[in-house]
């Protein structure tokens, strides 16, 4: 029971708010480090089991797939802690540890109940990082985020119940969409993974969190979802096409979006698309590709979010319309951001180059021409918005006149750590490949691959240059762009208001007799719910207990029928 890296963070977070500030920093650095060490000391296999309510729970299952993600989560937690060391807000500090701990617990879960518990806990703990901004806007975004996260948990719980009931067992291994409850579990994962239409919570909420919060958020929830997909649904054909859509549609939004942290959120869905394609192709190459790219993405995406978080901290905004020329006052952040940009764009010698190519290779080996071409399009597209747009509009372009100090030292250290990891993976891919679940028989540094990638990226850069020099590039404007969330944020509420107004109008046009008849019916129907009605009044405890006993008795009888 104690040999669980997740518990190191979860239990370690409990005394955190009581510690004095200096001890707290040391404690926060020690916990993810300790969890990482413990993860690597644990032997492979299911190392802890216990029975609860007749269910055999296996909270710790270590194998190479779980270890890749567990390692990435521990490192991401450490980066997040370093990045947030200047923050004195105990809510955020505790939330970071609980959130990271739940993600690690999810990655190590050997059974579906444990997975569900941690699945919910990631949602509940991470919303605090959005609310910690303490604005009306972030409060609302947090509520919407929470609805999506808890909704995903509910679907998963339903799916697990059906799965176990249908004889699928409680172990968290291959599930498959056609198994009982499989589709529900797949949709639950799809919400957290940002499947098209289910993705809206991501680009809605992430840019509303605090500077530190967004960095931490970017690392865990979606990657835990990728892990769950890789574990439960490898080789599911539909995922190939879902992934292609995810890789392609966000880049259009990213080009026209003004809030640069939202650009990165779209970019995140785009990168998740590559991983989902990898899982959909399946096989050793596909799963290796998804795991490797998830690992690399955690660090280069964190690095990009960190650089914009540093800008947000210093300038007070991350909107392209209000930024520009910051390389003069934040030169180190500029360089670090560009390392992140090179990594996500898959430049040779940077991490994306050696991880994304595993996925493209898996697709090419299956001779999926259309899928491959679309992913190549998405690769050029990601360079456009994350590789060029982010650094260009933040640090270069026209000088917006901000003269601010360089980012706080701890932020720069965290960025340097993420940059070092991104370069290390790119320069020595063998290190990354040796972590992967299957042996890797792929050499990323061939002349053809290096030349082709540089050609693709350089000419994409040339397209950007031609477009900006000729004035064809769409100017950055203050705006929001409609996405699928317009349905529940605008259309449905508007329809409800219209409906209400229509009913009121109808009510006014009715004759007095019909009106009083209607209100009589209404009173009759709602009487049990009113204050003194049988359902609405206060019930005695003993009365409630009688009802519960009655319900349980009926349940018991039914189970024998």
């Amino acid at each position, binding site marked *: 029971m104690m040999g669980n890296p997740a518990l190191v963070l979860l239990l370690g977070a409990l005394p955190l708010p009581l510690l004095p500030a200096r001890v707290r920093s040391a404690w926060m650095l020690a916990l993810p480090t300790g969890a990482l060490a413990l993860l690597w000391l644990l032997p492979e296999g299911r190392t802890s089991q216990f029975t609860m309510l007749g269910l055999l729970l296996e909270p710790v299952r270590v194998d190479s797939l779980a270890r890749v993600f567990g390692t990435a989560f521990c490192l991401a937690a450490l980066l997040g802690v370093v990045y947030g060391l200047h923050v004195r807000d105990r809510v955020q500090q505790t939330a970071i540890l609980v959130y990271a701990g739940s993600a690690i617990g999810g990655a190590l879960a050997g059974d579906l109940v444990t997975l569900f518990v941690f699945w919910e806990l990631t949602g509940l703990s991470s919303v605090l990082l959005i609310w910690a901004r303490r604005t009306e806007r972030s409060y609302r975004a947090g509520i919407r985020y929470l609805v999506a996260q808890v909704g995903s948990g509910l679907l998963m719980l339903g799916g697990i119940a059906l799965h176990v009931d249908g004889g699928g067992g409680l172990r968290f291994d291959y599930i498959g969409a056609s198994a009982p409850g499989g589709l529900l579990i797949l949709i639950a994962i799809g919400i957290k993974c940002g499947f098209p239409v289910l993705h809206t919570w991501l680009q809605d909420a992430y840019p509303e969190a605090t500077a530190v919060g967004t960095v931490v958020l970017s690392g865990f929830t979606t990657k835990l979802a990728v892990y769950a997909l890789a574990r439960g649904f490898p080789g599911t054909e539909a995922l190939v096409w879902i992934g292609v859509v995810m890789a392609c549609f966000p880049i259009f939004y990213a*080009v026209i979006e003004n809030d640069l942290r939202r650009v990165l959120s779209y970019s995140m869905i785009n990168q998740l698309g590559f991983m989902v394609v990898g899982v959909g192709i399946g096989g050793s190459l596909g799963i290796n590709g998804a795991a490797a790219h998830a690992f690399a993405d955690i660090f280069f995406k964190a690095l990009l979010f960190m650089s914009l978080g540093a800008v947000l901290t210093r300038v007070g905004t991350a909107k392209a319309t209000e930024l520009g020329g910051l390389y003069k006052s934040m030169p180190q952040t500029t360089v670090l951001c560009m390392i992140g940009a090179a990594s996500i764009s898959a430049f040779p010698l940077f991490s994306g180059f050696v991880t994304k190519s595993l996925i493209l290779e898996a697709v090419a080996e299956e001779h999926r021409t259309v899928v491959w071409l679309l992913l190549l399009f998405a690769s050029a597209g990601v360079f456009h918005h994350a590789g060029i747009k982010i650094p260009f509009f933040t640090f270069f372009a026209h000088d917006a006149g901000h003269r601010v100090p360089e980012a706080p030292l701890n932020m720069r250290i965290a960025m340097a750590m993420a940059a070092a990891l991104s370069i290390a993976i790119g320069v020595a891919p063998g290190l990354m490949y040796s972590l992967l679940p299957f042996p890797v028989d792929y050499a990323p540094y061939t002349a053809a691959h290096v030349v082709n990638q540089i*050609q*693709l990226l350089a*000419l*994409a*850069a040339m397209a*950007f240059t031609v*477009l900006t020099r000729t004035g064809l590039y*769409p100017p950055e404007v203050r705006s929001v762009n409609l996405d699928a969330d317009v349905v529940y944020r605008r259309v449905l509420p508007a329809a409800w208001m219209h409906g209400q107004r229509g009913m009121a109008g109808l009510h006014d046009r009715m004759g007095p007799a019909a009106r009083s008849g209607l209100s009589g019916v209404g009173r009759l129907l709602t009487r049990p719910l009113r204050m003194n009605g049988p359902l609405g009044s206060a019930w005695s405890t003993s009365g409630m207990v009688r009802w519960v006993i009655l319900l349980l008795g009926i349940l018991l009888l039914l189970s024998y029928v």
Partner: protein
Amino acid sequence: MKDDRRGLDEPRNVRLVVRALYLVCGLLLLTDLLYAKSPHFTFENWFGFYPVFGFVVSFSLVLVAKQLRHLLRRDEDYYERREQAADDG
């Protein structure tokens, strides 16, 4: 913090950078003749497939996105107004 002008504030220098980029791109196109291709797809053998693909899709991406903006763009407080109205009303 003094308000300093740097090299990149000179249009002349920016032009130089842009020209250098164009030159590199031209050279990269010619590089296609120099290495052995090991393609999965026949079209990878076409001369200049990757650079031309990179340029064309990036160019089209921006132009299509620009058109999409006409359809998708709303004021910055588009959602806030509705939410505020719902709260007050």
